[in-house]
């Protein structure tokens, strides 16, 4: 337990002393919602094929998932920073297991993601008038926590498998594009071509978004959301196991 708290303490210290990190972690997805979401809502109104929901409401879950995704991506990039500083290898000689190291990083990032989600929900509710299902908050927190953890482990696999951060940056750019746009983040999947829908349903971020959409505004089918959540959990566990393996192979 002390190793986990030490990693959380370290992450918190580093983030707290850097304004840039605070901006990216807490405010970036929020600005996305306020600028992009409000713009699309004003221009197009309700998303196609879904009645009784305006674009701000529809996009809210996308913003929350985007926050998970971005926090995970930024944190996994910190492996490169630590490697460049030399501290990465020194930390691997500290009295903690490789899984404690990864879990410690995740705990901190889950806290950030939940804080970010709280900010987003407050702004969405009070500034944009989104009707939030406050009674489903525990479910939403679970979605943010497992989502952020799963994406972090997923990204950690790539960050730990390559030594070159230009390669990693190229990979994350592709991931950003593919995962976010081939999903239900920005638009409902119903009106889209069949091949696109199949791709989107095979995309783990769609599973997370559907969970978050159901728990934030009550849109979706509970059974299918539950199934998507279970599959995402399996995805996260597999990524965690593989990330620990990659960490053990660091030489």
């Amino acid at each position, binding site marked *: 337990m002390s190793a986990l708290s030490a990693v959380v303490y370290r992450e918190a210290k580093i983030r707290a002393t850097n304004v840039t990190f605070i901006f990216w972690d807490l405010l970036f997805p929020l600005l996305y919602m306020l600028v992009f979401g409000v713009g699309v809502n004003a221009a197009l109104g309700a998303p196609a094929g879904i009645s009784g929901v305006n674009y701000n409401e529809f996009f809210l879950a996308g913003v929350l998932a985007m926050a998970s995704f971005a926090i995970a991506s930024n944190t996994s990039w910190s492996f490169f920073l630590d490697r460049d500083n030399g*501290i990465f290898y020194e930390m691997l*000689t500290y009295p903690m297991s490789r899984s404690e190291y990864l879990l410690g990083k995740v705990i901190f990032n889950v806290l950030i993601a939940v804080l970010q989600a709280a900010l987003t929900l407050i702004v969405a509710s009070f500034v944009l008038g989104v009707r939030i299902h406050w009674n489903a908050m525990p479910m939403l927190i679970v979605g943010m926590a497992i989502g952020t953890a799963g994406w972090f482990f997923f990204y950690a696999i790539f960050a730990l498998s390559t030594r070159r951060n230009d390669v990693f940056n190229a990979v994350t750019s592709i991931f950003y594009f593919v995962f976010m746009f081939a999903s239900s983040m920005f638009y409902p999947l119903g009106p889209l071509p069949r091949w696109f829908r199949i791709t989107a349903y095979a995309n783990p971020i769609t599973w997370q978004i559907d969970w978050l959409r159901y728990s934030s505004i009550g849109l979706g089918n509970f059974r299918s959301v539950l199934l998507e959540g279970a599959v995402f959990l399996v995805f996260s566990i597999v990524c965690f196991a593989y990330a620990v393996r990659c960490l053990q192979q660091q030489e």
Partner: protein
Amino acid sequence: MADVTLEVENLVKVYSSRGKSPVRAVDGLSFSVPRGIIFGLLGPNGAGKSTLLRVLTTLTRPTEGTARILGIDVVKKPLEVRRRISSVIQETAAELLLSVHDNLLTYARFQNIPRAEAHSRAESLIDEFQLRAEVERKVQDLSGGFRRRVQVAKVFMVNTPVLFLDEFSTGMDPILKRQVMNRLRAETEKGRTIILTTQILSEAEELCDDILIINKGRQIARGDLSALKLLSQGVHDILLTFDRLPDSIAAEIAALQPIRQNVSGNSIELTLKAVEGRVMEIVTELTRNRRILHVEVHGASLEDIFVELTTHQKEPA
């Protein structure tokens, strides 16, 4: 058994990469280190010192063989080993985004040191390592020398029984280096075992109770300084300073086939292997009819032994 800190048996580490022939960075090393000493690991670049340290600090798994720290296997129980060691790796490793003070406190947190104790130790080390003026600055804003101070200061935050130092004095000024060396000596008196690598042989000569010289991953020599000097019996250092460097001196020295030589200004420094009587004859020949300002002859230094053993690649002593 309790008095043995480190036991290494037939340790092998092979690095394989696609399209390249495998490299045996550590090739069948066996040795043990008793408790409470400073153990020096010497060797030229690429000898396998850092790889060996990486295995011992659980960063790398050996390909074959075993290594035990205080009787605990580094592969089977790496976490238990990590609880008993602290290390300064070769690169300057510090939390660049944190202040000097936070670097020490964060390290203490990982080592499970109670908060009050951590603050008190940090304060004392900040003074000892002359970091007071920089204490609130982020390490990324400090010079390389100061970053190294922070890195080395950290390992004195803890009392782990084993301390690994890879080229610890890199970037340190001579005064601080002297201070750290004294501190290391004091730590062994408390029972800590220090395992260090260094390229600065005078440092090893002064500091190490026991030395292992390796090259190409294999043991070349082992023992304390006097034992190693016996391996190099007959090696002498000669230092001659002339009022003016004689024209023919280079050829004269070359004819003696020295182990090494260095000409600097009017001075010539050479190391050669010869019986004592012959050394005196050589000095006489080189100085005959020449004006000499300074003559110095002494037995082999660790550097001489190191050069002789690693360049002639003697097999296990």
